[in-house]
């Protein structure tokens, strides 16, 4: 049984991608444990399996072998509905691309995960969305459509959205990949600051070695395995 201190635990994860002669053994028995309130980064060369690992831990993909536990719940063999519900409750995502819905305002985008969870009233959701957008420095742009923001602003909205349901874990896949240096540092610092304040765990995949060094724990990956 996983310890209470660990919000996520993965053991002996194997993942193959592709078919036939193009089948690749991307993850070769990866294991890790994520402690609550800690910021992790995963760094490594392109194609080493960082993003694949992140998608598996985020229950967006299924491993070929191995176990995944999130908040003491065994997710590796759970049904699609259970995994989807777990994503809504426990996990927030920030991707390289912001994935904001263009038909909705920034506040409405942030409210989308809350609407699915269904625990707050409309007013409470709106207030929380405004609060989160304020924390990322966009409190005066709650009514703007997502398409009316700059790249850095859009990524900040994505961060606010990932925090909407106060998830235990935030999984970030190259969150600064599409941003310039200034915005990269801004977004990275924001993510880490908010996570630390709220005691949330962050696992970030990044190519940027400078950003990786600024996290609490750096995990290096190569050829589908963690290396020392």
């Amino acid at each position, binding site marked *: 049984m996983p310890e209470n201190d660990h919000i996520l635990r993965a053991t002996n994860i194997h993942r193959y991608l592709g078919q036939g002669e193009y089948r690749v053994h991307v993850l070769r028995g990866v294991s890790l444990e994520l402690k609550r309130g800690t910021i992790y980064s995963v760094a490594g060369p392109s194609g080493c399996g960082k993003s694949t690992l992140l998608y598996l831990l985020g229950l967006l993909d299924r491993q070929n072998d191995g176990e995944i536990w999130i908040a003491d719940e065994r997710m590796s063999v759970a049904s699609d509905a259970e995994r*989807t519900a777990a994503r*809504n409750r426990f996990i927030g995502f920030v991707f390289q691309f912001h994935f904001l819905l263009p*038909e909705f305002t920034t506040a409405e985008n942030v409210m*989308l995960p809350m609407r699915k969870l269904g625990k707050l009233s409309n007013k409470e959701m709106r207030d929380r969305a405004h609060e989160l957008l304020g924390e990322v420095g966009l409190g005066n742009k709650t009514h703007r459509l997502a398409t009316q923001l700059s790249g850095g602003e859009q990524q900040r909205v994505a961060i606010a959205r990932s925090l909407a349901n106060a998830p235990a874990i935030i999984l970030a896949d190259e969150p600064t990949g599409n941003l310039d240096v200034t915005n990269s540092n801004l977004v990275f610092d924001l993510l880490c600051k908010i996570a630390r304040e709220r005691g949330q765990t962050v696992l970030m995949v990044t190519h940027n070695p400078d950003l990786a060094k600024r996290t609490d724990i750096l995990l290096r990956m190569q050829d589908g395995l963690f290396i020392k």
Partner: protein
Amino acid sequence: MENNLYIAVRFLLAKKRAMLMSLSGIIFGIGLFVVTQAQTSGFEHFFIRTVLGTDGALRVQDRIQETIASMKVVNPTTGAKSRVSISKERKYIEGVEFPNKIGNGLMQFENVSGVSPVLRGNGQIDTNFRKQTIQIFGINLDQHLAVSDLASQIVFGSLSDFRANPKGVMVGSMLADRVNITVGDPVILSQGGRSERFRVSAIFESGVEHVDKERVIVHLPEARVILAEPFSVTYLQANLLDTDRAVEDADQMQDVLGHSVEPWQEREKIWLDVFHALRASSALTVSTIILISGLGMFNTLAMIVMEKTKEIAILRSMGYTRQDIGQIFLMQGGLVLLAGSIFGCAFGVFGTWLVENIPLRIRGIFSTDHFVVYKSPWHYVAAVAAASVVVMIASWIPSRRAARLEPGDIIRGTAA
């Protein structure tokens, strides 16, 4: 579900132009379906009203005589002789020999509202202007008024004049024009060497061409004299409370009365079949509009699903289930269907009103000076049902595809 509807509405509003095309198709499809059905069933109902008002719901006519053909056989062993029936045949004796008795028997059926004896025969009308071959109809006026719309068909003269005058005649409008007679004119009716002088009491217009061209109505006793038929009648015309039951009632009556009974559905079968075919054909034709709109909707939704793969992926990553995603796209189709149905039905109401006022002169199997429509809620139900089936199938396929998208695959595809 409310949440999914909220997202569906937003997605729909973002694709207004594309959805407007499908919406227009559905509105026109439903509206035109209703209008064409109102028209075709309008003419059909008008025709039925006309024939029922002229010739009644049932006709009791020839007496049925069962005959059995048999042969004499001899038993080779015992030498005993006997007769064996070898076939059963039916013989029809023309006319109704005992009209009062049969008429009383007919009135015992609960669905029968009136019975009128009719003596019919060919004859000739002779006026100051010309001679013309006619059909003489001898009736009992009060009984005949109970089984026809004769009272409302009088265009000149009066029934009371005909009632008061034993030598009065009522002449069809087209016949009156042809032989150039009017109310009050003397005429001579003749048949087989017998002739009698009459006076025109009224001119009627049934709307049925062959009736208005040939029929002359006289009192039954006078018809008996001209047609030399003192006792029997040609047929009994009956009307029913529920005319739709005519076929079932006719079968029963035939067994009981021993006379052939012809319901109006059989009598007018040819024209009724034509109307049915016309209605089916127009329904089919207009349904293609609905079908094409459905194809348009399918195309639009399929394009939206392809364009929205990223949105689907992020919604799934946030915790929206496959069912939610499917519902969001299905609801878009449903919303267009709802709007299309409401506006389509409104278009149907307006279109039907418009058509009703279009002038159209028809003389023949019935008489009208404008389009005839029959308004029924079932036309709207059928139109909306057809549209619903098409639109929901067209929406279901793309929505199912959207629900089956794997978020990991999409997100992986967008990673640099």
